[in-house]
């Protein structure tokens, strides 16, 4: 304490990314907190890539600015992939 602003942002970003992928890309809510920075193929990264591919974004597996911009757009509540 105090929280490092960047760390706080990352917390918010992670929350946005997780809830978006749970709502629309069938990311399982398994109680484990995903880490944005862990290298390798954690479920969140795989789902993030799936979402980036669907929207024609650059597939980075990272919540870059373009990806977050799309996640913040108002949208239909139906998932984009089979749930």
């Amino acid at each position: 304490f105090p929280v490092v602003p960047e760390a706080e942002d990352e917390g918010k970003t992670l929350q946005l990314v997780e809830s978006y992928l749970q709502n629309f890309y069938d990311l399982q809510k398994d109680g484990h907190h995903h880490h944005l920075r862990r290298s390798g193929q954690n479920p969140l990264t795989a789902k993030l890539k799936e979402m980036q591919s669907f929207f024609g974004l650059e597939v980075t597996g990272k919540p870059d600015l373009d990806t977050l911009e799309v996640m913040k757009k108002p949208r239909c509540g139906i998932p984009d992939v089979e749930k």
Partner: protein
Amino acid sequence: YVFTPGNPKWKRNNLTYRILNYTPKMRRADVDEAVRKALSVWSNVTPLTFQRVEDKEADIMISFAYRDHQDNSPFDGPNGQLAHAFQPGEGIGGDVHMDEEEAWTKDGRGYNLFIVLAHELGHSLGLSHSNDPGALMYPTYSYTDPNEFLLPQDDIDGIQAIYGGSTAAVQPTGPVTPEACNPKLTFDAITTLRGEIFFFKGRYMLRKHPARTETELNFISLFWPRLPSGIQAAYENIETDEIIVFKEDKYWVIRGYDVLPGYPKPIYRFGFPKTVKRVNAAYNDETTGKTYFFVADRYWRYDEKKKSMDHGYPKKIVSSFGNIGRVDAAFQKDGYVYFFHGTTQFQFDPRARQIVRQMKSISWFNC
């Protein structure tokens, strides 16, 4: 387009719908009209018919709902998730739920009820989300003037693959989303804007920033909701930091994200004769500050400081610019003028007064 997994579809073409409740944010008549228009988007291109019923179960039950409304998919308050719908089937199948906490409207403010309803009804009929950015079944909201709305070809192909074509003698077609590297791509208008280049096509604009390799595709309405689609000519006045866009006999002046109040105005304010009904292309010469307007096979030259057409115009395009034919779109960059005619692009050197290169129309998109 994508079918809903399991390919659910209605076994009958004559479906019923019922409006269970209304949002206090719109007049009831406007909600009824939005529902009717949204249903006609799909009935116009298929054999499907929709009959309104009251006081009994309908195939498609339409309602406004608040947060947790007992369907295991609670709404999330303003913005975010706007609505959802259920695939064809008994009971809740086909039903459409709109998030009551959204700012529903019948125009470009808030969220246009017609547009969102039309999208959700696609789900009610068996379509899933499409990854075509121009499709109605694309997951994110984007506004289109309901009076100009045409069901895109991607959605027509999808729904007709489920229910077959329309009973009309002529099959309806819809707009196709432009692809930057499609060699057949032509443009309605092109302008520079603060160092970027905007290529207008139908209701879309392709945006090219010199420092980015990829090209961005957006709806014109994303930046300028008050502008129509089908812009016919555009140019940037660097002195005033404005772009001026033309359609038919009207023009708009834009500064940044704002269409200036009091527009559109008649093009005759520039000094065109009444015989001119539309402008095909325009560019502003960054050296002389003169603006060149191209109409059919002639062109005019306008003095932005004097705010009047120069004498001695119109002149034949061929007499000053060579064999470039009719001009669809034009812009100037780094001293050269680029003329677009169909899929051909001519690079013209105004100092040497000659065409110095000929390219494909899509040469700016790093294909």
